């Protein structure tokens, strides 16, 4: 079995005393393979490699000039590994995993969940509601997916499981349902509203417009992209499209309990600046956790 990817980079530099112009390019090619196999978008990977190269060679220069006393003298392999891990972690995390949940004079905080079909929005909506309830909040779930068969039933069943009310209507106007859901929450003293919307393609203009209208009507304090951790090269196109339309405040990466490397975490953050706030770690409603960049960094590197 050929050693490829990140392990190959480490092995390649193992015999070397330090990172040099000569050996860094070969190590970067190994790193590149690791990132692409980990589903980091190609352009994102290229920009990241440039950063790593600059940082690696820059640190060596500083060490030689005696100015790198905070950079411990280690072998080239360990040095390269540490730089990769640090750069990835720094890029992906700035500790912004908190949700904006303040109620206003106008009413409850509104969280809007959006994303592609099947990414985990409905499940994540229920998980969020459950966590907020545990923190002493009074959430209301709003079933705004009027297209998918039994989508409303699905959210209603989940709501029942965690004893959280679900606002639903028989109608087919998602925008009205969201508006009236927020009004109902205000009236009933619910202090945070979670809007579960239908999955949609970014190329479906009418459905993207529907989201524009929902956002305009409900003024969410959080607009979260719910994204499957196993998504491939389309992560940037997808995140960029939603972000350009809605100004995303965060992303949730779901199904991270599998073995997908989750390169989308880097792609989304690097290409749009949107922070990953939460990760889905299972189908159970207690399986939603704050995003931890260091953990995802080593996972992406493989």
């Amino acid at each position: 079995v050929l050693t490829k990817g990140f392990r190959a980079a480490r092995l390649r530099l193992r015999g070397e005393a330090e990172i040099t112009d000569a050996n860094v390019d070969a190590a970067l090619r190994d790193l590149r393979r690791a990132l692409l196999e980990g589903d980091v978008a190609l352009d994102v990977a290229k920009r990241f490699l440039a950063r790593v190269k600059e940082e690696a060679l820059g640190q060596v220069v500083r060490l030689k000039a005696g100015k790198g006393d905070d950079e411990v003298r280690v072998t080239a392999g360990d040095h390269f590994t540490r730089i990769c891990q640090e750069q990835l972690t720094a890029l992906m995390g700035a500790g912004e995993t908190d949700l904006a949940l303040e109620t206003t004079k106008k009413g409850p905080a509104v969280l809007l969940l959006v994303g592609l079909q099947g990414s985990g929005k409905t499940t994540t909506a229920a998980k969020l509601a459950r966590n907020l309830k545990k923190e002493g909040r009074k959430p209301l779930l709003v079933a705004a997916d009027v297209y998918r068969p039994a989508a409303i039933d699905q959210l209603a069943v989940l709501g029942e499981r965690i004893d959280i009310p679900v606002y639903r209507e028989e109608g087919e106007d998602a925008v009205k349902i969201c508006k009236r859901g927020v009004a109902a929450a205000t009236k009933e003293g619910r202090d945070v509203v979670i809007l579960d919307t239908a999955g949609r393609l970014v190329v479906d203009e009418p459905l993207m417009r529907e989201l524009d209208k929902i956002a305009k009507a409900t003024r969410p304090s959080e607009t979260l992209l719910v994204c499957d951790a196993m998504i491939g090269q389309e992560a940037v196109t997808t995140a960029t499209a939603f972000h350009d339309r809605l100004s995303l405040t965060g992303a949730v990466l779901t199904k991270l309990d599998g073995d997908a490397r989750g390169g989308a975490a880097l792609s989304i953050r690097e290409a749009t600046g949107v922070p990953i706030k939460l990760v889905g770690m299972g189908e159970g409603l207690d399986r939603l956790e704050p995003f931890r960049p260091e953990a995802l960094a080593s996972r992406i590197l493989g």
Partner: protein
Amino acid sequence: LLGRRKIDEALLEELETLLISSDLGVDTTLDILDTVRERASRNELADASAIRELIRDHLTTTLEGVEAPLTLAAEPGPAILIVIGVNGSGKTTTIGKLAFRLVRDGKGVVIAAADTYRAAAAEQLVVWGERAECTVVRKEAGADPAAVVFDALAQAKKEGADVVIIDTAGRLHTETNLMEELAKIARVASRQVPDAPHEVLLVLDATTGQNAVQQAELFHRYTGLTGLVLTKLDGTAKGGIVVGITHRLKVPVKLIGIGEGVEDLRDFDAGAFIDALMS
């Protein structure tokens, strides 16, 4: 992109971008580029359009080489199709579309709602059964999926149905107990009808990245795959993951999903797929 340009490193880099961005993966992309470089070095490629042909042929060989139609009849019947895959890939929707097509083509279909786990899974399938105008056999939430299969086969016998399609709960291939549950469902089918299951279809979301390779390998190991279904091809994703999977496991893509409506199902057409991939 690929007209009458001469072949140089810049062109190869553009090609690499095209192939990687289509989720073909590093290994498949490198295989293709190595072949291109080797042929170019022997002056066997006149220009960029010759490269396009080479890549088309390479992909066509892989995808058409294992092509096989869907098994929709069995003697004795019914033909049993089990639909499997990770969470949210499009299994339930695909079954609804397939049932609709088969009923319209005059076949008797029974659907087994063997996802007894996820909230409102059976309810979702019941709606599709109404659209397709066929029986959906279900049990209460939490029931043993194998029991649903058993009941569905009994119903199929009663109706003289030609085809039974079994919907299963989404599951990550890394969950061993869930994978063994799937193997058990297949065994139950095989004991009821000779040669069953006649199809074991892995449903893959076209937006999936390289994890699709692990998905295919594990599902294949536990149940044996007879075909792939690639869904959500109406989006921006090219679904290049199927190339490497087909190459390694020799399992053909049989169907594609191109939307959420009842008629948004097509037989796999390698030529059209490759055209879209290379565009």
